[in-house]
């Protein structure tokens, strides 16, 4: 019963969304150039599935690599900044300022500096999803309950031990907020990079099919992207369930 409903509800949601979309295109008589209906998209997908899947694979590779780097770097930076508050006060404003530079404006520069390979794309992904990971992890690391900090101090734990054994596990549930927001942004970052430098990936499909006025193909790419991004998001959710089962147990 629970097993059935665990699939039924998300399915119901997806079907409803599709139905709303489809009927909107019919009721308002929207042409497929502006907003294709689901069958147009299916049709576009079936025209060249291998191509689309290959490009999706390339987007996933860029996304996951960049996200991985951002998570490791973000975690380390968050640990450093929370361990050394003077450094935080000196660098966080600069970080916030740098983060606010629109990535769309940075993407062309990255191509100029790093060329046409995967590098500038990965860098853009890192840049875009680094910040939420840092902010969320910092929030988690500074939320250790006073009695647990006191415990760790009374045990004369080193800074590293305090982080690894107490502060970081405690921060995990909050860190996962950053990871969930970050993985969604990572996909977007990959797409922005690919739109800017359309050598491959679903972003390239979107921009190039736009140039050929093939809106259904662009939407097939966007749909694949949505599926892919949802899958990555729920992978992160799964990881959360595995790593922090206790968080659900102590809250209600």
């Amino acid at each position, binding site marked *: 019963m629970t097993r059935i409903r665990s699939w039924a509800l998300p399915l119901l949601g997806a079907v409803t969304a599709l139905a709303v979309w489809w009927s909107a295109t019919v009721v308002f008589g929207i*042409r497929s*150039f502006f907003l294709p209906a689901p069958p147009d998209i299916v049709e576009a997908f079936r025209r060249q599935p291998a191509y689309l899947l290959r490009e999706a694979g390339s987007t996933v590779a860029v996304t996951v690599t960049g996200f991985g780097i951002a998570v490791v770097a973000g975690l380390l930076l968050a640990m450093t900044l929370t361990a050394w508050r003077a450094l935080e006060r000196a660098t966080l404003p600069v970080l916030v300022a740098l983060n606010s530079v629109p990535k769309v404006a940075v993407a062309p520069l990255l*191509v100029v500096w790093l060329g*046409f390979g995967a590098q500038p794309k990965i860098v853009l992904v890192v840049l875009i999803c680094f910040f939420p990971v840092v902010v969320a992890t910092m929030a988690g690391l500074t939320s250790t309950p006073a009695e647990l900090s006191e415990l760790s101090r009374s045990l004369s734990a080193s800074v590293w031990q305090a982080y690894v054994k107490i502060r970081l596990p405690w921060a995990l549930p909050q860190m996962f907020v950053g990871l969930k927001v970050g993985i969604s942004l990572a996909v977007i970052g990959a797409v922005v990079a690919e739109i800017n430098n359309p050598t*491959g990936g679903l972003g*390239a499909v979107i921009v*190039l099919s736009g140039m*050929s*006025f*093939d809106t259904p193909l662009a939407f097939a790419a966007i749909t694949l992207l949505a599926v892919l991004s949802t899958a990555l998001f729920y992978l992160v959710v799964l990881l959360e369930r595995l790593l922090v089962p206790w968080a659900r147990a102590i809250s209600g």
Partner: protein
Amino acid sequence: GDSGDAPETSADKVTYLTAFGAVGRDAFAWVAQEKGYFRDAGLDVTIQLGAATGENIKVLSAGQAQFANLDMTGAWILAGKGQAPDIRAFAAVHQQTLVSIIALEGSGITKPKDLEGRKLGAATGSVNQLLFPAYAKLAGIDASKVEWVNAAPAQLPSLLASGRVDALSTFLIGARGIEKAAGGKKTVVLPYSEFLPGLFGNGLMASSKVTAADPDMVRRFRDAALKGLQYTLDHPDEAAQILKKAQPTADVTAAVGEITLMTPAVKPSGVIDKTKVADALTTLESNGLIPPGLTPESVVDFSLAPTA
């Protein structure tokens, strides 16, 4: 990208940037690749998809690509501002600018005068807008009575089709695509070249560093690319198919349309006539688009450009 067949040991590895993604006007590069013209010329060419003129110039300047196809008029306006001092054209693709006003039939726009009081869409900050005052003066209309709307290039057709703008200023070769976007409505095309015949359209360019270091390689590239251009004009359908094969997003019909529409403006020799360049620069100067002083030699490498 598409790197063609396995490179020969001696082949020069170069990167080429298209003018605008992967559409009909750039098909000749893939044709040259597919037909082995580049390989035969001892070149291992990687084709990258270019963006707007300015971005392509930056990439050339930074050395991330050796060659690019881009709008010569736009490039020269930038050169006049001292922003692209080391970029040289070495072959013309379009002998005249393809910038045009495009409206839909039935919109009441049939001649330049009809544009007054209308909304015109164009790529943000594009040459199309910069050239418009000159065009307007020659066409006898009041440029200040036209309202401009900036947008991303790929967005323009949908703005026109949805009625958010009354006309576009874009390359006339896009007309077929725009008709497709507008649900089959026919377009009215008013080319700028009617009043501004002396301006060039797209051309092949390189940074002066490349042209100075290996002029022979530039010639080999030029000839292979122009051979591809010739083949493309002769076989528009096959060229479009080749493009589609290399770039699955390409639309064959729109590509054939672009190729046939651009044919009248193309000389497959790629010739760049020095006096025509001088005239073009004068036109730009007299319309205040560039300060005086830009010489033909500073924008075209006449030692590399085909002369007849």
